[in-house]
């Protein structure tokens, strides 16, 4: 914040990566990014006692590689004037996200990988598969097969508590993302966006808000806001620029296809399109962060009601309700749609489907966007290499879509839908 009490204006400077080259020092030159993978690994690992090893590898789009046991995907960002505030609260020092300049590498992703079972963490439920394919029929199922990837494979220290390991894995991956982007500091960007909202727009345009559903159910199932798990919050208004600038990060590793990865918040298609449409076809009324996966009908109804009330406070004529993961949370989405409609706020829900349809549906949810059927099988593929596990990672077998990272993300970032046949 500036001394006059105003935020520094947000600037998102994009650096479009055409190629990544391994070298001894990091540098950026006109679309060509040189990175020293050993330096990235060593820096990522520093002071993280719960990790035995961090290995950073570069994978190219089109490589015959399946990356398995993927936990999260991150877009490389760095806060230019204060790199130590990048991903504030969770990696960097606390500072407002969505203020000041952020440099972002586009066309490059950071994928964190950890084989929990191999590290001795057993649960009654096996950890579901989570793949990114760099070639083959699954390539286009994720947002990652067409980018260069830095794969951060973490090996936990035996005996370290799972909570510590998870914190260290997330920290290591965010460090790699920040450090990779640091090569762009003081270099010219390909584009700069501000995401400012024009104040004086036609008030007859409909005001639209997003109810962004997240969840926190404990270690390995958490979402973090400025580094703290969001569990227990009442619905909260966020500045859309905070969401784009790393205030929200992911630590939930359930079903891959419907996982809200960190990059999904950073690149949010909903926020981008609502900002783009502001003053043209709509007024962007804001982002409400609300919980899904609440335990009881009371908690679910209470949160739905409070979300609807906040939407009204924002002056929303309509809301888009996103969904986090599958099953239980669909009820939170449906109740939120219902609560908004009861207040006269039009609602559209974004959900993924299964072979037999939805797990919940209310009459008020008469306008639903389907992000695809996550039970559908993708053709078998035999990659030349598998990263992240020593098992077969379903190579040569048909893979259900639910195993592909972000394939049916219910924040609306992909172009998949399901249709009757």
């Amino acid at each position, binding site marked *: 914040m500036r001394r006059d009490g105003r935020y520094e204006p947000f600037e998102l400077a994009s650096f479009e990566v055409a190629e990544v080259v391994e070298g001894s020092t990091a540098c950026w030159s006109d679309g060509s990014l040189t990175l020293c993978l050993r330096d990235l690994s060593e820096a990522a690992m520093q002071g993280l006692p719960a990790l035995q090893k961090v290995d950073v590898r570069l994978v190219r789009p089109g490589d015959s590689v399946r990356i398995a046991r993927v936990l999260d995907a991150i877009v490389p960002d760095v806060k230019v004037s204060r790199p130590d505030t990048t991903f504030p609260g969770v990696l960097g020092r606390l500072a407002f996200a969505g203020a000041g300049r952020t440099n972002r590498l586009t066309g490059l992703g950071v994928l964190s990988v950890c084989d929990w079972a191999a590290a001795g963490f057993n649960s009654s439920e096996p950890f579901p598969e989570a793949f990114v394919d760099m070639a083959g029929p699954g390539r286009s199922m994720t947002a990652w097969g067409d980018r260069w990837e830095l794969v951060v494979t973490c090996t936990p220290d035996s005996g370290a508590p799972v909570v510590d390991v998870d914190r260290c894995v997330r920290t290591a991956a965010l460090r790699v993302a920040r450090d990779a982007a640091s090569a762009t500091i003081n270099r010219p960007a390909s584009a700069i966006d501000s995401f400012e909202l024009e104040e004086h727009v036609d008030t007859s345009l409909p005001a639209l808000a997003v109810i962004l559903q997240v969840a926190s159910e404990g270690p390995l199932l958490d979402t973090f806001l400025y580094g703290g798990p969001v569990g227990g919050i009442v619905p909260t208004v966020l500045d859309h620029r905070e969401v784009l600038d790393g205030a929200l990060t992911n630590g939930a590793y359930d079903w891959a296809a419907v996982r809200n990865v960190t990059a999904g918040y950073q690149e949010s298609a909903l926020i981008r399109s609502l900002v783009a449409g502001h003053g043209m076809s709509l007024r962007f009324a804001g982002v409400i962060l609300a919980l899904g996966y609440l335990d009881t009908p009371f908690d679910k109804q209470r949160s739905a009601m409070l979300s609807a009330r906040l939407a009204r406070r924002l002056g929303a004529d*309509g809301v888009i309700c996103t969904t986090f993961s599958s099953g239980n949370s669909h009820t939170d989405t449906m109740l939120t749609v219902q609560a908004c409609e009861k207040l006269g706020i039009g609602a559209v829900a974004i959900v993924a489907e*299964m072979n037999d349809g939805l797990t919940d549906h209310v009459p008020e949810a008469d306008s639903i*966007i389907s992000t695809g059927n996550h039970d559908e099988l993708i053709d078998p593929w035999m990659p030349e290499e598998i990263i992240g596990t020593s098992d077969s990672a379903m190579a040569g077998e048909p893979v259900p879509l639910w195993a592909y990272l972000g394939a049916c993300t219910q924040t609306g970032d992909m172009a998949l839908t399901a249709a009757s*046949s």
Partner: protein
Amino acid sequence: MIVVHYLNQFFAGQGGEDAAGLAPQRIGGPVGPGRGLEGAGLPVDVTLSCGDDFFGEHEAEALERLLSWLDEIEPDVLVCGPSFGSGRYGYACGSLAREACRRGIPVVAAMTPDNPGVLAAAGAAYIVPTGPSVASMKTALRAIAGLAHRLGNAESVGSPAEGGYLPRGSRRNVLVSQVGADRAIAALLAKLSGHVRTEVDSAFDRVSPPPAIGDLGSCTLALVTEAGCVPQGNPDRLPTRHANIWLRYPLGGVDSLSPARYESVHAGFDTRIANLDPNRLVPLDAVRRLERQGRIGGLHAFFYTTSGVDTPMAAAAKFGQEIASELIPAGVQAVILTGT
């Protein structure tokens, strides 16, 4: 392209009701509506027929014979009907279609949307909707010939609306030009201007509560749960999530569910506390107490279980109907359904 056409005795020109008991027959070339298919550009190589009563009364035998011919002929496409509003004929068409599809043969059928054959086909066949009578024959044959041609040549038939067939109940993924976010914004703007549209049709199932039970003292009660409660070790392999089955376990002589013998395999909640006392999943101890006190008439001899995690509404409704169809004939008047 090899085309096989299935007809009942009437359309195969073998007679009316008097010939309904005729066994399956194999005839070279087109017969009856098969000539219409030829006229619409689909030459028929072999016609198979069966009497409607024969199929109804000896379904396994009829299917075995018809399928053995299909195995020999190896057609590129099978056409069944049109059977219009005829229930028996439609059922035979749908059943044959389902079994042929299991062998990898694409099938086109045609009937009214409410024909029992649609259910019998179980989403396997491409069914052209027709009117109830032969008056819609010509239109139906043209639509069948078009679909069969594309299927026989392994070409795409498009969506139900594009291809002119009834939705088969499956949801296939398609890539569209706009991401979900942009489709959501467009749908919301449309909704706010009074034009509601959706990518998922409504499927909610509202069940009105039955009348209250007057006297519990003479009522037989059953215990049903979605808590994933099973005998220790899950011997029948109840899926822990996304379950496609329910199971039934005997309660005769059991007074209480001991943690040594029962457990929950439900993947949707932390089962540790519940597993210390499985009666908290299926309240057998409390119900036995009520039974002894005479406050309920009796307890049904089995409990029913599934794991309600990621369970689509359609699957849940099916489980409920199947379980109820066992409970009602057994005289059960009330159920305690424990959820998690």
